[in-house]
């Protein structure tokens, strides 16, 4: 319990830092942020520009603006979207579940595939299988995700025509039964998840492998064999838990990467998540939405790290029972 509180307290400076950075970025552009809004419209007069600036408080000194920003952040009030004047918060919240779904499912499959791969290649170190897995992982790590997405679209969507290549729901979604709805969503998830998983396998897999190799060299493994355990028993009962502990941290660290990646393939697959929303917002210079997404994802990452840390504390008896 103490640890949880300590952890949250130590995260507060980081939270502030996030607000400062987002604020700083917004003011990077030469000229006022509202110029981004008005430049698109040549009919705007100088007077109207000024009014807009006052509306956004841009005529006030910088530190006042910053305090305003932080005050609004507490309520997640990022302002209204430049494109359709709806509150940015709402637009983001609409799309958030889809991205969370995508990333959760991806994370699940990444763990499901990468960890056994890593363990297997550690046990069969330097064998043909190990080398084969290594080559596969290298290639998967080097593929541009957007290209893989395109290739999949061509292969499965166009040539074979068996999987949907865009969106999350089909047209007649609302008319479907619950089971059909689930099936429909799953079908739509297959390609984006596949791209996400394939490009992210390598890191977790390699870390699992080296973690496992380290564990297998440990003295207590000798004790386990000396007791009469078979190789399979030694690996499952003794090596596994020790090797998997560090993976909790690794998984936690890979969350921002997953979220970052989804910006690319959500766009390509027209997936209705915050990734695509973010991309469209960036292209349209819709800065309330952009800053909203940036801040939100940063906070989510922070949360993810705290959860990973706490999980680790509970999982490792050396820390749990001090």
């Amino acid at each position: 319990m103490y640890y949880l509180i300590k952890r949250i307290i130590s995260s507060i400076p980081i939270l502030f830092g996030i607000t400062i950075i987002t604020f700083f970025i917004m003011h990077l552009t030469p000229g006022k942020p509202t110029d981004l809004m008005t430049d698109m419209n040549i009919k705007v007069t100088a007077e109207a520009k000024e009014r807009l600036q006052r509306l956004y408080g841009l005529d006030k000194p910088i530190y006042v603006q910053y305090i305003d920003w932080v005050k609004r952040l507490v309520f997640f009030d990022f302002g209204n979207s430049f494109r359709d004047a709806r509150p940015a918060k709402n637009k983001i919240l609409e799309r958030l579940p889809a991205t969370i779904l995508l990333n959760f499912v991806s994370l699940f499959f990444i763990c499901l595939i990468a960890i056994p791969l890593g363990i297997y290649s550690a046990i069969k170190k330097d064998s043909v299988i190990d080398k084969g897995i290594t080559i596969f992982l290298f290639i998967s790590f080097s593929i541009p995700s957007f290209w893989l997405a395109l290739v999949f679209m061509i292969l499965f969507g166009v040539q074979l025509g068996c999987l949907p290549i865009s969106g999350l729901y089909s047209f007649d979604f609302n008319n479907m039964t619950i089971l059909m709805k689930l099936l429909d969503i799953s079908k739509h998830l297959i390609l984006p998840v596949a791209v996400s998983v394939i490009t992210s396998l390598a890191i977790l897999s390699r870390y699992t492998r080296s973690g496992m190799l380290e564990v297998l060299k440990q003295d207590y493994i000798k004790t386990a064999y000396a007791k009469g355990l078979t190789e399979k028993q030694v690996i499952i009962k003794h090596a596994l838990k020790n090797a998997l502990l560090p993976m909790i941290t690794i998984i936690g660290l890979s969350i921002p990467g997953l979220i970052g990646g989804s910006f690319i393939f959500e766009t390509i697959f027209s997936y209705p998540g915050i990734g695509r929303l973010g991309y469209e917002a960036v292209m349209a210079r819709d800065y309330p939405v952009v800053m909203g997404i940036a801040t939100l994802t940063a906070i989510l990452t922070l949360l993810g790290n705290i959860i990973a840390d706490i999980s680790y504390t509970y999982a490792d008896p050396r820390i749990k029972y001090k």
Partner: protein
Amino acid sequence: MGNNIKKLLKNKFAVIGLTIIFLLIFVAVFASVIAPYTPSEQNLSERLLKPSMEHFFGTDDLGRDIFTRMIYGSRISLIVGFISVLIILIIGTFLGIVSGFYGGKIDYVIMRFTDIVLCFPIFFLILLIIAFLEPNIYNVMIVIGFTSWPGLARLVRAEVLSLKEREFILVAKMMALSNIKIFTVHILPNIISPLMVYSSLAIGGAILTESSLSFLGLGVQPPMPSWGQILTSGKDYIYIAWWLSIFPGIAILLTVLSFNLVGEAIRDVFDPKEDHIE
């Protein structure tokens, strides 16, 4: 050092990787000599042609020879790769060393700063910063450099911390060698190999990032021929002109793969557990 280079060359993958990289550099440098056309040469009567003897990789929607554009594109990829990583190296190494060496408050501040930057999905961060500035090749390099250094800073700091505790440093301190001397003679040589590994992998990463940015329209702008960009135009013609989408992707894949292979090979050879210079 010579021994290690020999060991490196024994690794088949490293050799393949290095060959591809050198080939790429060669192509990039001698692009004007090798390329059959010029990259912006449009020929609207020859739009979207299949790969042929005259156009090895076909033509794009403006009739430009893709083979040529890809050759010139190698320049973009390599330049962005090398320079972004250079920026990362400078900032990251400096901050990592300062943080690790001096510890205390400086360390705390720098580490908190890295924590903050690492909370943002880096790609999105790059995306939005470029959107607020102006998308062009210079901004791409600078932004990648300025957003990706935290990982390296942490790595360097960890190395410095572990070296600091080792005996030979304590001995040197006892001999009252100045900090600078300790640094250059003892610490620096031991950081070089992890730095080399990191750089190689980072160049691959930077090239992936640049091509992703260009694909999304926020990287290198036309008419500069980045591989990512050729893929963008390909996106609109996937049904009728597959060659626009395949060749640049393979090029990116092979390039990034090569840098990754070389990086890993360096890591295997210069294993820090065996090779400390005392």
